[in-house]
């Protein structure tokens, strides 16, 4: 029986998990690094334990400190959220070793799906199609050069322990291979301490479609339909929607079957997501499985009317899959917009204090936020600030609702990717539902030349609040925003 839950995370996902915990009558316990003592997520929970000072590596990524915190807080269970240690089998084992419930899949499942290479092999065994790639054993330049011929060009050089596109590079011609391998190994060592690489055929302009999977200890595994995640920037999702405009019912059920098969193959329990690539010939391939709650899980909650976090906790507590989940059918169309603290053009992370904040509301609008007025946004963490999730009766209404809500979202003090999101929502391909993973990179958000009213407002504020000299002492200097003078890349957010 879970009475208290340590949420080993921060930001919007910690807040979101805490909300469900509180609704379940479970005491949510926050953790925080000293720098985060005043963070929004800490204020959302009845209890909080400090992880002490230091970098993420020394706090949110420190298994010993988190286990210590869980012991100190005397919690019954630990929810890892996403990112940080959510896909660390070591952490899962440490939690269970401490006699606590782990709200996530068995460590063994995390392991089997962990390494790209291992998971590809495992899936091939299970009969799930994978993108053609090199033999994992092949590591020398010679072997890989040979493999490259088999795989075919263009291809990707990938780090075996990579993720999020880190240490990944495209090679179009054989003569570029060696240089790419050297670079990839160097980056892989730097980022993951593991220089193993492999080759994978590059699918041109594929759809990135994922299926939500859920399993229980009794061995039941089912899918909760798909999410279209092709709107990506630098391999980072920025907009997701469900249902996917790219699927028809037969294809959907074929892909869903494969996804369930993939999860069954590793004895999956709890919430997980199987990511698939869909090429122009409507062939699909296993990409990877995320053995945790997904950032974009709310769009599935919206169209199915369920609470995935509640189910995670109940299943960790030994429950079966909720009654009726096998009979769920999606209703309406849901879209998620990810608000990042970053320059909409360069995608470089932004920092600063949130000086004004107001969330959109109204019918079919949900906001999961990790910030509030007064929040300090630093660059040491994931730049995801908040998520806007809209539900509409159909895709057209959902897009209109997303545009409306986005324009009601007020965030001042930290630059965000809002304009990029708006650009996607009004791009012809997105509106038509015909877009692939290359859409966002081809978009250039309008440069946002301020209207006269904005100049007036700025001037009036400057006059009201007097010379910035003194005020400037408080805030960071505009050096935090350096590109402007030199390059003019800098455009208003």
């Amino acid at each position, binding site marked *: 029986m879970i009475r208290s839950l340590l949420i080993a995370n921060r930001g919007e996902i910690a807040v979101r998990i805490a909300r469900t915990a509180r609704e379940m009558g479970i005491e949510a316990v926050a953790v925080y690094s000293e720098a985060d003592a005043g963070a929004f997520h800490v204020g959302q929970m009845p209890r909080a334990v400090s992880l002490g000072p230091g970098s993420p590596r020394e706090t949110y990524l420190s298994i010993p400190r988190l286990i210590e915190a869980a012991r100190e807080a005397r919690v019954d269970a630990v929810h890892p959220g996403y990112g940080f240690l959510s896909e660390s089998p070591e952490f899962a084992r440490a939690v269970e070793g401490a006699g606590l419930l782990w709200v996530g899949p068995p460590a063994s499942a995390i392991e089997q799906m962990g390494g790209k290479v291992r998971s590809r092999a495992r899936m091939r065994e299970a009969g799930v199609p994978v993108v053609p790639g090199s033999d994992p054993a092949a590591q020398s330049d010679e072997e890989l050069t040979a493999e490259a011929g088999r795989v075919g060009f263009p291809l990707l050089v990938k780090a075996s322990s990579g993720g999020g596109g880190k240490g990944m590079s495209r090679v179009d011609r054989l003569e570029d291979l060696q240089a790419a391998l050297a670079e990839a190994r160097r980056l892989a060592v730097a980022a993951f301490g593991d220089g193993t690489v492999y080759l994978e055929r590059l699918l041109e302009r594929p759809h990135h479609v994922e299926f939500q999977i859920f399993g229980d200890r009794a061995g039941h595994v089912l899918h909760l339909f798909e999410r279209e995640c092709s709107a990506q920037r630098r391999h980072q999702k920025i907009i997701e929607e469900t249902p996917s405009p790219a699927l028809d019912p037969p294809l959907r059920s074929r892909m869903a079957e494969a996804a369930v098969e993939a999860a069954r193959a590793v004895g999956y329990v709890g919430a997980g997501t199987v990511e698939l690539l869909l090429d122009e010939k409507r062939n699909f391939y296993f990409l990877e499985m995320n053995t945790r709650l997904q950032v974009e899980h709310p769009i599935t909650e919206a169209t199915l009317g369920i609470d995935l976090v509640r189910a995670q906790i109940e299943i960790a507590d030994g429950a079966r899959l909720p009654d009726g989940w096998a009979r769920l059918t999606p209703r309406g169309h849901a879209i998620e917009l990810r608000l990042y603290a970053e320059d909409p053009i360069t995608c470089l992370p932004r920092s600063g204090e949130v000086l*004004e904040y107001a969330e959109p509301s109204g019918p079919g609008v949900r906001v999961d936020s990790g910030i509030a007025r007064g929040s300090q946004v630093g660059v040491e963490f994931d730049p995801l600030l908040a998520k806007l999730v809209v539900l509409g009766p159909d895709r057209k209404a959902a897009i209109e609702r997303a545009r409306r809500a986005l324009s009601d979202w007020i965030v001042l003090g930290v630059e965000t990717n809002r304009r990029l999101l708006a650009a996607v929502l009004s791009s012809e391909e997105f509106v038509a539902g015909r877009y692939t993973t290359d859409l966002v990179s081809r978009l250039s958000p309008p440069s946002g*030349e301020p209207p006269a009213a904005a100049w007036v*407002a*700025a001037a009036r*504020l400057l006059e009201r609040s007097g010379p*910035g000299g003194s005020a400037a002492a408080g805030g960071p200097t505009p050096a935090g925003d350096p590109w402007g003078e030199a390059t003019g890349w800098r455009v208003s957010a």
Partner: protein
Amino acid sequence: MRIASGDRVRDVRLEPRAVSLDGERFEFRVAADGAAGEILEIEGRRHRIRVARRGDLVFVWCDGEVYEFMTVRSTGRPRTEAGDLLAPMPGRIRQTCVSEGEAVRAGQLLLILEAMKMEHAIRAPRDGTVRRLPHREGDLVETGTPLVEIA
């Protein structure tokens, strides 16, 4: 006063009910200053406004869009030398790809900054010559530290 937004710098003269932007005059009226922020009427059109300030930076939300402004002090030298490329975030110089005195073309890779466990390519914004390259590989730099100066 002089106010910049992005690379646009304008001369702004404020009167009680009008403003002139680089000499162009706009009448305005504060229709309301209420719960949903301020409402500015300019030539008949209403604009919903929210503002915030941090030091020399002014943030303006206007009709659903956000704009950023910076005061330009008439006195004192500009904040950064034209030509400076500043570190966009705290990080470590992973690699320098040019040397002082070297001629560079717009878009050319100048150095790689490692921050947040990712590598960021710093490229030349335009053709020029590397006048200063103050840091070595491995150096830690703070936000706003000049990385390269291009003449």
